[in-house]
């Protein structure tokens, strides 16, 4: 990948930030843009910041269902905001590691 994000901060093979402290709002917008979300609305930010907050306080990012139950944004809307994998995409935009997915 030779895009603008990976040229400025260190990311893993799938484009997730390696160091969450390098994140800022401007970077989030650039990651979103590259992922095909041209504009981050208030609803996007609510989810991204919820994810980030949860990761920074608990060490793990919430699953899509916990996200739906706790963020106040219903799962269906999460998919509209962040197509395909909302938890994954919101984590990427929020500058935290890919959710591990409990196994």
């Amino acid at each position, binding site marked *: 990948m030779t895009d603008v994000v990976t040229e400025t901060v260190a990311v893993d093979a799938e484009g997730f930030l390696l160091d969450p402290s390098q994140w800022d709002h401007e970077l989030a917008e650039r990651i979103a843009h590259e992922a095909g979300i041209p504009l981050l609305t208030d609803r996007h930010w609510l989810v991204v910041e919820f994810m980030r907050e949860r990761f920074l306080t608990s060490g793990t990012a919430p699953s899509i*269902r916990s996200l739906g139950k706790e963020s106040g944004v219903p799962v269906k809307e999460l*998919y509209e905001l962040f197509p395909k994998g909302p938890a994954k995409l919101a984590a990427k935009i929020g500058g935290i590691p890919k959710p591990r997915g409990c196994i």
Partner: protein
Amino acid sequence: MRKQIVILGGGTGGTMIANRLRKRLASSDADIHVVDRDNRHVYQPGLLFVPFGLADPDEIVRPRRRQLHRGIEFHEDEVESVVLDRDRVLLAGGHELAYDVLVVASGARLLPEETPGMTGPGWGERVSTFYDLEGAVRTRELLDRFDGGRLVVDITDMPIKCPVAPIEFVFLADWYLRERGIRDRTEIVLATPLDGCFTKPIASKHLTHLLGEKGIDVEVEFSAGEVDGIGGVLTSYDGRTIDFDLLVTVPLHGGAAFVGRSVGLGDALDFVPADPHTLQATARPNVFVLGDATDLPSSKAGSVTHFEAELLDRNIERALAGRELEAGFDGHANCFIETGFHKALLIDFNYETEPVPGRFPTALGPLPLLHESQLNHLGKLFFQWIYWHALLPGRDLPLVGPNMPTAGKQLAGVAEGG
């Protein structure tokens, strides 16, 4: 005063920890109580075999009470709630149990009704599950009269119990339909919210290869949002659809309902947050969590519960004595994966190390890791005997300790975690 130990749940974890503690603690020092709503202990790994006629329901159910050692009091009652501030468990029958140490071992609960349409018209006819006994029996009847078409197995969302079971189900379905001579007119599809058939990359690659060889399609990143059980359509949240003639679903999972009724105990899905290495609940120092009831990033599987129990008995003894807990659990899991035609794979992993090829439990084997063999299949079958006669009574298994062995594993170049 004798200490009061109350264990919620008389399944794999609750039975094992009760029996292990009864061996460790003198009757004059501690009373042990186990609470469960019924007296039927299901050997859950057996549920996979029921739909294919490879196990009968009565072979995999035994009375819970009979699995508990003498000196353990069994209460057949529903838990109303836990009152953490008063160290008490309220039972639906009106009884109260006061505890010095509480163990939450109440497992995971199936929530098919949380997916719109899943339990509506067509449930039990064209839509079924094998994740509980009633469903497994129903799935057997539906498979018996299945005459070709599209069989879809769907994981609604993680976390689920035994994440390899849906993969095993499609492998066995492939075998079963070939035996019946209708495989050539059946499509088998595995739909999963994950980005591969399994969460761990190396095992996922091996399993994807096997699925391909058997002609089983995998639909990844598919999060089921709605089921039409009459029309036979499964729709994802992002609007993709999969048509089915028979849908075998793995429904959403949550923790026990009483967890949700107990202030401060659980998370949004009613699982109980706990320290990943000591198993102490985040809520209170005198509460511990075991098995599927936890929110830990380990598999919800009997092997994990067993390895946890081997640490938890010591930690409860330490807690009773006011000593520091041992941060000894490493997330160890060990699972046979039935692949059909009397073969199975074996995987062995923990929080940090994903499943890799090699041998288990030592470099000499005898069991091959991530490789199909008949010996692994026999191991899986023999395991039921071990379960009732060694694991539940609280005996340690020779050669299989709580921590993951590394001796036989091909670990070179493997990235951490997964």
